[in-house]
């Protein structure tokens, strides 16, 4: 039986993990994304997402070096996102060894990027990241870009369907309302998107306890759940979440 996936995610800037991952300081270099990736593989993570939040050109080449080193040491799938705007960017990242790329703002501005990426490198490596925020007036979720700073007026569900039709292999769905609050994923949004498309949906934003993972896999109908600080600050561990889910009857590796 196919299992639900638990995916730790971390931000990387100029080759270093941005948030201080406090629990690793004694044994490993916690600021090194490669060391952290290897740690999470050993801890039972099903996949990893590395988001490059570097703006500079030098930073980009540092990130490519990290992707190459991660490939040498990590034997679970990993996705690289952040600042990808062209097919050349995608090629470079995949060639360095990443399994998937995630595109967000660039895909909204240029939807053809999804189709071109899928055609050249396969649907499986194109993850379309969508940041959604609830609009009370419309009673619907709207797509935000530029890290949440810009509204698009587009419906999340419509955009998810369009991304699928263009060749997205998975949707990485972040709730802007829930992100950072630690009181659970947006279950309604996740369920609506998961039911609207026939590709896997990775839920993101709001994980604060192991129960939240259970909720998003059952009520939210998510195929995978992404979390950052809850793991980095050891509020819970991948192993603890998985043991809990297994006990509750969720199919887990």
């Amino acid at each position: 039986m196919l299992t639900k996936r638990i995916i730790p995610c971390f931000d990387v800037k100029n080759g270093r993990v941005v948030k201080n991952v406090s629990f690793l300081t004694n044994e490993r270099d916690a600021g090194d994304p490669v060391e952290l990736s290897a740690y999470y593989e050993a801890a039972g993570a099903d996949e990893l997402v590395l988001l490059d939040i570097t703006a500079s050109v030098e930073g980009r080449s540092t990130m490519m070096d990290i992707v190459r080193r991660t490939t040498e040491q990590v034997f679970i799938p990993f996705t690289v996102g952040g600042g990808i705007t062209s097919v050349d960017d995608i090629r470079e990242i995949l060639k360095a060894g990443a399994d998937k790329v995630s595109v967000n703002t660039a895909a909204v501005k240029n939807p053809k990027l999804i189709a071109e990426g899928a055609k050249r490198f396969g649907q499986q490596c194109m993850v379309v990241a969508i940041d959604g925020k609830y609009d009370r007036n419309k009673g619907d979720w709207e797509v935000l870009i530029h890290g949440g700073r810009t509204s698009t007026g587009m419906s999340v569900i419509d955009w998810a369907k369009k991304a699928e039709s263009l060749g997205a292999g998975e949707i990485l769905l972040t709730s802007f309302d829930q992100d950072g609050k630690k009181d659970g994923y947006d279950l309604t949004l996740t369920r609506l998107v998961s039911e609207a498309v026939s590709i896997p949906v990775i839920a993101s934003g709001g994980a604060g306890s192991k129960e939240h993972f259970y909720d998003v896999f059952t009520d939210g109908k998510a195929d995978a759940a992404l979390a950052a600080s809850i793991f980095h600050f050891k509020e819970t561990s991948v192993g603890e979440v998985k043991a809990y889910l297994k006990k509750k009857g969720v199919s887990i590796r």
Partner: protein
Amino acid sequence: MIAIVDYGMGNLRSVQKAFEKVGEEAVITSDPAVVQSADGVLLPGVGAFGDAMFHLKQSGLLEAVKNAAKHGTPLLGICLGMQLLFSASEEHGNHIGLNLIPGHVKRFKGKFKIPHVGWNELQVKRQHPLLDGVGKQEFVYYVHSYLVDPTDRNVILASSEYHGEVPAVVSYKNVHGAQFHPEKSASTGLRILSNFGKMCREGVATV
């Protein structure tokens, strides 16, 4: 030495690094002579079946892979690389494959999520050196929309369940395939690659 066949498709670096991790020497090559003289051949692949066959033919690697297989060299196809070992595929029209294992490649059909993406349990059906040390409740990472349908179901060494049986590992004489990505399947996958490396070094051709 294992030759990883580079015909312009797929993430070859991951496979090479995985072999390196388990202490097996593997080179990425697009030279037919290197493929034919290798102790083992790894046929990777992502993307579309027709494109892959086209590139294999164009690069002259198709004959090299077939010759290696004919001479008893252990061959392992991964994901699309495994599907290419079969007679034909229905992906985007009908395409002829390498025809090293009789059978067809067909698309998942039904109202469920396609592609089949993620970790699924490997159910070993038949003991084989390739699966040495792979026990119960081990998981492997899949990402695919097509699956193989071997004419002789006995070639299936292991399978997973996803809205029906998904052949996971196949073996016919010296020709083997893994539908999942062993290079991305943590310790279970590394074990299988290590087993394959050992088979290549020992020149084992098991039936």
